[in-house]
């Protein structure tokens, strides 16, 4: 590695990025120092083990990554707007679509849904935190440092450029000699380990920490979706861990698992990647289904229709999600029988998904539907996602897929699934639970303006891609000539992307607007909602529940409100045992960042030192005695008095 290759050079856009990174970092440092906020930052956020704060940090990171991935998307759309465009060259375009894919899936969708889980699940099941609060903080910092490591690649060393699926042998040292794909293997590995630990944490939390009376079949649908999601994580992520480790051995240590020569098997990577990659799709979509279930039920003023079949269909989806991976490469030549099998399993997923759609529609029936911003996203989701779903069935048909594979048709399909599914889901959840997190609601007028911009922009941006695909335009091509006839539809798509981007700008502006103008005293239950989290004051005190609630029915809080029965047992407050904050997860994350960074550049001596640092941190934790702290009944009474204005 020569020093002139260390920093990415030669691109005015990159220099602009360098300058802006330095300026923003300086502004943050100066701002924190000027307002004397370093201590606050360390005590309240960097060392926190509170699931609500960790959730907020996840969501904030996801929003920042949404911005980064969105800029990538706009650059791609700008390049493709007209034939033979020269805004980006091939290399730059390849890096951008690779980072767009990786960031949107792993560093935007994943942390957004995990952030939602963190904020909401303990509150929904009546728990005071997750099962392993310290581990939860480690999960977050692993994710965050992985994301940061991935993001610095575009100014230091160069970004990965072999697609988000990083197919070998293209991603091997032979065809991708820059460090870009080293970043890919290490950054994803670090954040992937964090995700795996999240999976363990939430399964234990949901199985062991539910409030008395909350049987499994009384859990809110979002909690159910999170449980199933985390089971998928537990089975799918180890595959990614192994695949990425082999990839790193190939690229950093010269092994030959996936290379062209010496017995490497390029298609082994594709199989391993999609054995993880397809369940991953359901990891980001199922929690969104859960959010929609809660939102639709709340704003129709009705219980969820077909609760049992909702649960069964999610379990069915989770099982089937592991049986469909080969549909990502029907064209590998494995023959009609194998393809037939995977076609049928793939189409079978449409059945439980269809059940869910109809259950949502019948939840609306005889309801009292109010069109709040979360409900708007849920109602936008149903018609658009159904288009994504039916085109998914079309893609599942192997013979036809030979014509769709690798085309813009496929690109249109998965954006029609992921944007109305996952993105609308987390946006619905964000608008819905925002008052629970911060104590005030987002402005409805601005939220709805953003919604309409997003929904119109989305359809204008992605509908044309179906037709471009059928007309022979493949994905990942950085340019096309005028005589292909791809020009007009691409121009329409680019205009749509701009509208979509404006929608997201309005959505973010709403944070600032609402922070200044929204009323603060709306109580703990501004939506007249149904589940336990709304029985707490907003914002939620650190211990969540002053007394552990006793659950008597599905939609426990609604039951208590309607039948005017107390949610908590009578009697005085008892002492609450809470975990201590710790700086160790953050420090471990920083060391992991450097370990990854040194390995990216094959600087083995510093890497070994960082590796020893990781072991030391684990040892420190192993021999640490930390029994947490207790909140006295007096303190609880005072807090509750302040937050609720009365005693419970």
């Amino acid at each position, binding site marked *: 590695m020569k020093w002139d290759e260390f920093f990415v050079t030669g691109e005015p856009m990159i220099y602009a990025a360098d300058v802006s990174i330095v300026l923003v970092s300086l502004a943050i440092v100066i701002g924190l120092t000027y307002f004397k906020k370093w201590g606050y930052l360390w005590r309240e956020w960097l060392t926190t083990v509170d699931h609500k704060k960790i959730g907020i940090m996840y969501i904030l990171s996801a929003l920042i990554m949404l911005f980064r991935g969105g800029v990538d998307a706009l650059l791609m759309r700008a390049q493709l707007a007209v034939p033979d465009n020269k805004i980006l060259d*091939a290399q730059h375009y390849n890096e951008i679509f690779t980072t767009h894919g990786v960031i949107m899936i792993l560093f935007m969708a994943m942390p957004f849904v995990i952030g939602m889980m963190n904020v909401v699940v303990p509150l929904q099941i009546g728990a005071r935190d997750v099962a392993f609060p310290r581990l939860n903080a480690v999960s977050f910092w692993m994710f965050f440092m992985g994301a940061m490591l991935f993001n610095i690649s575009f100014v230091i060393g160069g970004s990965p450029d072999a697609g988000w699926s990083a197919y070998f042998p293209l991603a091997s040292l032979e065809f991708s000699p820059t460090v870009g794909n080293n970043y890919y293997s290490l950054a994803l590995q670090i954040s992937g380990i964090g995700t795996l630990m999240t999976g363990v944490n939430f399964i234990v939390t949901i199985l062991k920490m539910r409030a008395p009376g909350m049987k499994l079949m009384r859990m809110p649908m979002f909690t159910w979706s999170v449980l199933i999601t985390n089971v998928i994580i537990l089975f799918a992520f180890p595959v990614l861990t192994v695949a990425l480790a082999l990839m790193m051995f190939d690229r950093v240590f010269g092994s030959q698992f996936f290379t062209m020569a010496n017995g490497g098997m*390029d298609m082994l990577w594709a199989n391993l990647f999609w054995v993880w990659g397809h369940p991953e799709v359901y990891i980001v979509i199922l929690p969104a289904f859960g959010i929609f279930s809660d939102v639709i039920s709340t704003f129709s003023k009705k219980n969820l229709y077909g609760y049992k079949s909702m649960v069964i269909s999610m379990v069915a989806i989770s099982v089937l999600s592991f049986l469909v991976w080969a549909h990502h490469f029907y064209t590998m030549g494995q023959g009609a029988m194998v393809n037939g099998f995977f076609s049928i399993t793939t189409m079978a997923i449409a059945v439980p998904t269809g059940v869910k759609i*109809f259950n949502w*529609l019948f939840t609306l029936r005889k309801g009292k539907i109010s069109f709040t911003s979360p409900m708007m996203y849920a109602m936008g989701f149903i018609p658009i996602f159904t288009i994504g779903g039916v085109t998914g069935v079309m893609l599942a*048909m192997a013979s036809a897929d030979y014509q769709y594979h690798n085309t813009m048709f496929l690109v249109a399909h998965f954006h029609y699934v992921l944007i109305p599914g996952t993105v609308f889901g987390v946006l619905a959840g964000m608008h819905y639970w925002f008052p629970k997190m911060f104590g005030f609601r987002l402005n409805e007028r601005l939220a709805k303006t953003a919604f309409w911009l997003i929904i119109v922009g989305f359809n204008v941006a992605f509908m*044309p891609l179906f037709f471009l695909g059928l007309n022979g335009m493949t*994905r990942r091509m950085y340019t096309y000539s005028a005589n292909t006839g791809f020009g007009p539809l691409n121009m329409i798509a680019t205009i749509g992307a701009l509208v979509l981007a404006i929608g997201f700008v309005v959505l973010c502006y709403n944070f600032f607007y609402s922070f200044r103008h929204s009323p603060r005293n709306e109580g703990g239950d501004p939506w007249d909602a149904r589940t336990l989290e709304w029985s707490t004051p907003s914002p939620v005190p650190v211990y969540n529940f002053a007394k552990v609630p006793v659950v008597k029915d599905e939609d426990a809080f609604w039951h208590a409100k309607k039948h005017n029965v107390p949610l908590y047992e009578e009697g005085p407050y008892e002492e609450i045992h809470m975990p201590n904050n710790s700086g160790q997860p953050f420090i471990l994350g920083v060391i992991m960042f450097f370990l990854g960074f040194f390995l990216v550049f094959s600087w083995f001596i510093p890497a070994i030192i960082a590796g020893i640092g990781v072991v030391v941190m684990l040892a420190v934790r192993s021999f640490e005695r930390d029994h947490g702290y207790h909140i006295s009944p007096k303190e609880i009474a005072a807090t509750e008095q302040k937050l609720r204005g009365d005693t419970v």
Partner: protein
Amino acid sequence: MKKKRWLFSLIFISIVMLLSGCDTKLMVLDPKGPVAKTQSNTIIFSILMMALVLIVVYILYIFMLTKYRASKTPDDYEPPHMEGSKWLEFIWTAIPIIIVAILSVVTVRTTYAVEKVPAGYEDQKPLVIYAASSNWKWHFSYPEEGIETVNYVNIPTHRPVEFRLYSYGPISSFWVPQLGGQKYAMSDMITKLNLVAEHEGSYMGKNSNFSGKGFAQMEFEVLAQSPADYTKWVKEVQQTAPKLTEQEFNTVLHTDFVGRKSYSSTHLGFAPAPEGDMAGHHHGGDSSEKSKESGTDSEDHMQDMGDMKDMNDHSSMEHGH
């Protein structure tokens, strides 16, 4: 809600405009051979089935949203508690299962059909053409005719063509939309794709699987000629084109963009395709390199790295033809 109706009409109008705006038919739905025809029919059938599903969902959706909005119900209306309905849930599980079953039958039958030599052409001896990809070109070898072309391939109409695909590098995907769906070309094995052209004409072919910097330009022309014209063309190439030497082949292999080329011999003699004894995972690589270099792994590796550097030096990204 007015906005919603307005939005739907906007979407509808834009779809109609998109459909009518195309003067020529969409390529995939304008087949010129039996394989693409089968696929086009499958696609249209599935679109119709799926349109049915969409219509049912949309009607229910619009009905629920217009009838049960809060503004239309009295203030004291309390929505009932509904557990679900066994019958309704049975119906919307059973009907999708039936739809999926129908589509499964269609899928399996058509998948077998497009993998085989197209119906009606089984008796003819197929024309075998080896199609190998390298960064960023396509090499077509006609072993029986003893000719080789680069970036274009001529075929006779009404005769089955068996393309044997492999790659000198990243995985690529051989796709001629108007003749039939694609298939991967990989370095350590060959895959077979059976196509027939039933109409004379020039068709766009391309690599559809991302393979690096020159991917967007990795196109080729498929010229379907009448059998007589085709034979004439083969003779012409055999008589006028130069022989393909090993040295020339290696030069072409390591040049990013070469345009069209024709030769009166193939590379299969000195650089066989990865099939039969030559298949397997020990063979992927750059076989021409292997035949010269019998060094250790690390030397091989250095060589490959060197090649990459050379490739990077070709900064011009001009279109070959």
